[in-house]
């Protein structure tokens, strides 16, 4: 459908093949900027999720003990309740009248509300919150496979704590990290509810652009072309992650 078009004045699609939808995406800075913005948001989400998930997963594997099941459940909760509920919850938390701004105001720390919604900050918070479990789960299983005594062994040979992480733990947990990153990146790239609600219509991502075209403008062929571009990017990332996994396994 992405190579079809609608004649002027009608919404009935004309199935004569055309590349004009793709030309429009490539030729208009608006869509390219939107694509770059989406990629950037997904990358930032992946990096933040990895930063948060590494210590958390380590803690779950090594220190949580009998609370492990409980903590893993807590980490998983945002995933099982869908995208909408947590996002609406975050809106209440981050909004100008929300808990964070309300607390800061009542403590006298700020006069006017911080803008946490309607910009990339809000979207990033929402995306990291939503997709952190996708990073934690593969990491937990990767770290679980490390022998319990590698840390002690390395340190007995004179390695510092940071060196242990950099030279031993990170390389050995790389498959988990790569799998988690690919999952989080793809989930963030295609996420729709979170940028729509937390971006308050001011931050356009590729998914919200496709939604606007499909459900509001009713230009279905163009919306399909946007979706196809997203699909192509997902395929690229899938291939890259697969390649990286192989490389990590070999080294």
């Amino acid at each position, binding site marked *: 459908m992405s190579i079809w078009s609608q004649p002027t*004045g009608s919404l*009935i699609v004309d199935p004569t093949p055309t590349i004009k939808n793709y030309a429009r995406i490539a030729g208009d800075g608006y869509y390219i*900027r939107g694509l770059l913005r989406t990629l950037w948001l997904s990358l930032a989400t992946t990096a933040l999720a990895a930063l948060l998930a590494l210590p958390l997963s380590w803690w779950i594997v090594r220190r949580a003990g009998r609370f492990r099941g409980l903590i893993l459940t807590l980490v998983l909760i945002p995933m099982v309740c869908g995208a909408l509920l947590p996002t609406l919850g975050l809106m209440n938390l981050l909004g100008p*009248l929300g808990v964070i701004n309300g607390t800061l105001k009542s403590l006298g720390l700020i006069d006017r509300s911080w803008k946490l919604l309607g910009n990339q900050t809000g979207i990033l918070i929402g995306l990291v919150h939503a997709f952190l479990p996708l990073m934690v789960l593969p990491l937990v299983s990767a770290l679980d496979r490390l022998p319990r005594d590698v840390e002690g062994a390395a340190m007995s040979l004179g390695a510092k704590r940071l060196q242990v992480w950099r030279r031993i733990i990170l390389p050995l947990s790389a498959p988990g990290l790569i799998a988690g990153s690919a999952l989080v990146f793809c989930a963030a790239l295609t996420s729709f509810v979170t940028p729509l609600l937390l971006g308050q219509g001011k931050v356009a991502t590729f998914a919200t652009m496709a939604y*606007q075209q499909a459900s509001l*403008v009713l230009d279905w062929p163009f919306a399909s072309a946007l979706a196809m571009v997203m699909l192509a990017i997902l395929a690229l990332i899938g291939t890259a992650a697969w390649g990286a996994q192989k490389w990590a396994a070999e080294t």
Partner: protein
Amino acid sequence: MNATSRLTLTTALTGFVLAASAASAQDFSGQTLVVGTWGGDIERLLKEHAAAPLEAATGAKVEFLLGGSGDRMAKIYAERQNPTMDVTFQNIYEAPQLLADDLVVAPDPELDMYKNVWEGMNDGCYAMSLVGLGIAYSKDLVSEPPEWADMWNPDYKGMIAMAPYPSSEGDGLLGVAARLEGADEHDADVAFAKVAELGEPALTYTSLDEVFALMEAGEVAMAPMISGYVLAGLKEFPGIGFSFPSDPGPVLIRDMVCQVKDSPNPELAQMFIEYALSAETQKAYAEEIYFGPTNSTVELSESAAADTINSPEEVDSLLALDWPWLIEQRADWTERWNKDIMGQ
């Protein structure tokens, strides 16, 4: 058995026979009419005032399919070889598009329900309800019911909330902005430049409550909004007012009810539309959710009359946009809106 009781029995029997024959003439039991509309109050009112009497009179069942009007457009186009929906409620610019693409039955000027609607409003489909784009405002920040021009007061820069685009609200605002500059919506450059002067919107709202909460907190000063739901919602927000401006007047927006072409139950569909356009349903729309009746024979209570568009003078004072032309601009204007107004 005396004469009177014999007479009563005869009458009752005759009545029974008549009722039975009437029912058999219009017996649609076993059939299901599918009606696509918005959820919430609209669905409730249609269930009470159109679906219930239709089911009682015909034995058919009425099934509601809820969602946004854009979803229904997609469904109608996708199923155009084999429609499953009989009746659909669409907005002011979707209805003429559907008729142009030959997907709905053209309104029939010979029917009473057509004639009862204000003249010139059955455009594409039958006109269901009348609302106007006016201004919702925070009574704390804006002391008097504002005119359109007041939105451009520098004190309120960045404090205006807007609906997502494309929408009747967005097109309405562009049409008003152009008129404030002495042009009209056909002059897109003027319209967009003027709306861009408002600055980035305080928020693009997805629900009315969101705007109202921020208005009461003094974060949003004004928002172009459609009467109806807003007026109904305001009863819970004493700090918020709604103004029908006069220069230019509120932008006319109406909901339309359409009979899908070649649908499975055309007779039932037409009957449903008759109930929907009846004075009784239209009165309930006005009294309960402040949607103005399109049926010119409806008589309203004083309070509903004050908050709805229901007299010929009020109808005349509304600003009518060139919707067919606006539809053609949709794709270009959406990109322009995203770039010029939302700064993306």
